[in-house]
């Protein structure tokens, strides 16, 4: 076990994947000498060469389309999108090519592309640097989507994503890059939890709190704070956003009867809607209350002076728990209206 930051864990995972498979190549803007604007690829170009850690021209569709061609040729490209908000120029190549080529060719052409996306807010950046676009991709058939919440998962899951023959979007909670945690670098990948498996982070019996990525650590804090209030919260880290591993969620909701979902992305049509709808379908007779969603507002990501109000935080999630528990909450005053 080594203690390392989140960012370092991804770096170590990338290094291991590159060591093990010469077909793994990294591509992106500024990932070479600079090591990426977040330094996630720090040192890799020096060690593996510019043909495996490729600084590309400034064009996301170009990067993604080139990665498709490399995958066609048998490579396993790992693309870094510099910030969440810059993935959209590549949207067409992702949705029409990366996601569809294996279906289009009846599986003949595989697209083992990993798309790394530093995402989410909380770092005081200007527009387009703090977005949570995951729902666009979870709604796209043919893609796997994961998000990681701790250094160990970051390390393991980047390797699993690269090893997967399906294309994977790998969402990195950028505001947690400096969080430290223990990582077992020697762990056998085949013994690690499946990339698709959700995990119960904190056990509880009153209410199930589902989240992923940057809000997992907030959710842990919520569980602690709520227990002071006498509410026992079971926190589940989704890990895989598409497909979702519904079984642990169902099991938990059958036990608690109450569900809160939280994410930074806008609520309308966000992943929370799918989780709420699916769990309602699967556990209708167990639910004591409607699933509650605590999310970013349905507005473009606001200027950074507002982000503390925009992002779900301990207070807002606690309030969501109160709503799920039928306790007095911020919406109580609106009741009956």
């Amino acid at each position, binding site marked *: 076990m080594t203690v390392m930051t989140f960012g370092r864990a991804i770096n170590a995972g990338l290094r291991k994947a590159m060591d093990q498979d010469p077909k793994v*190549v990294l591509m992106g803007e500024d990932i070479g000498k600079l090591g990426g604007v977040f330094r996630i690829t720090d040192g890799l170009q020096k060690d593996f060469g510019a*043909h495996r850690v490729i600084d*590309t*021209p400034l*064009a996301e*569709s*170009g990067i*993604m*389309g*080139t*990665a*498709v*061609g*490399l*995958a*066609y*040729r*048998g*490579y396993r*490209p790992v693309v870094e999108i510099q910030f969440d908000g810059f993935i959209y*120029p590549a949207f*067409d*190549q992702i949705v*029409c*090519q990366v996601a*569809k080529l*294996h*279906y*289009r*060719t*009846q*599986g*003949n*052409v595989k697209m083992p592309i990993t798309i790394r996306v530093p995402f989410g807010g909380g770092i005081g950046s200007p527009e387009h640097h703090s977005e949570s676009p995951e729902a666009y991709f979870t709604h796209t*058939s*043919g893609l796997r989507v994961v998000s990681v919440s701790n250094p160990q998962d970051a390390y393991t899951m980047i390797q699993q994503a690269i090893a997967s023959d*399906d294309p994977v979007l790998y969402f990195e909670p950028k505001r947690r890059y400096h969080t430290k945690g223990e990582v077992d670098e020697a762990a056998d990948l085949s013994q690690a939890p499946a990339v698709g498996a959700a995990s119960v982070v904190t056990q509880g019996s009153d209410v199930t709190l589902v989240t992923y990525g940057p809000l997992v650590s907030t959710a842990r804090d919520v569980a602690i704070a709520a227990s002071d209030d006498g509410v026992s919260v079971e926190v589940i880290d989704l890990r895989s956003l*598409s*497909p979702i591993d519904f079984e642990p969620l169902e099991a938990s909701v059958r036990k608690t009867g109450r569900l809160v979902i939280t994410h930074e992305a806008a609520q309308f049509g966000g992943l929370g809607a799918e989780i709420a709808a699916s769990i309602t379908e699967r556990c209708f007779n167990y639910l004591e209350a409607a699933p509650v969603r605590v999310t970013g507002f349905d507005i473009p990501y606001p200027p950074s002076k507002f982000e503390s109000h925009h992002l779900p935080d301990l207070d807002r999630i606690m309030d969501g728990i109160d709503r799920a528990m039928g306790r007095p909450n911020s919406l109580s005053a609106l009741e009956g209206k």
Partner: protein
Amino acid sequence: MSEQHSLRDGVTGEPLTLITAEGQRVDSDTLDPWVNDVGDSFLAGLYEDMVVIRRIDTEATHLQRQGELALWPPLLGQEAAQIGSARALAQDDFVFPSYRENGVAYCRGVNLTDLIRVWRGNASSGWDPYQVNVATPQVIIGAQTLHATGYAMGLVNDGASSATITYFGDGATSQGDVNEAMVFAASFCLPVVFFCQNNHWAISEPVGLQSQVPLAGRAPGFGIPALRVDGNDVLAVLAATRIALDRACSGGGPTFIEAVTYRMGPHTTADDPTRYRDANELEDWKAKDPISRLAALLNSHGMDMEKLDADVAAKADAVASDLRSGCINLPDPEPLDVLPTFSLRIAPG
């Protein structure tokens, strides 16, 4: 003719030509050295190819009219562009086509039934790309040019000495992807041939709406050498493609070829070109037909055209009949085949 002059000609001037519309062989300093080996029997082979793919095109159009195909994108008029380029390729070269390169696919050995699976609605792609080194037809305009670029990057990394060729239309040159592909190919000096069939129309839009200057002129600004050739001249196209492939395979990087040709049919069987284009224009281009000019040349060389035409017609008939029976006998897929056999999520809805 000075090098300077011939280069300008080759990029934005009159298209380079070896066989005129009337079937006369003319010289070109740029192209001639690349077709020294091409004798009459090779030309006769190209002739056969062109006749056969025109026949495939006609047959498929009939099948569409008869309700056996959902749609067909004819290549009528573009036979020389497709055959001249496809016959320049080596087996290892990889093709990234658009939806209109059925002639190229034929040359690469795509099975006739596989050719029409997509157009009958049975499959989203008719063949396994790795069996014939041809990617599946690309519908998103221009997207495939980036795939060719990435594949070429893989070739370089692998130390392979083959190339990719990507086909796209005049309309496609306006897409960001095509321009980005040129940026990437130039930046990494990749073995890609950008083969633009300027057939003068993008559905109802004339090429002048996409660009008021010759399309081949676009490439040098990206650092990519370009050639503008008569796309109805199968020999000129062959020569130009050989130049480009030779450059690619010897580490010289990408080349852009504009094959100036004409779409004599509709955009697809769903299109009605009389709504937007002048019948005279079509007549002008009929006079430049790629097949008849090669016939005239072969005839002038003393080739027994009666025999050749009979042989070629027999071949074309056989191909057409295979195509038809392959099409008609293609069974409808089973409902459950809609589901992938690999890891996609399926909703229970």
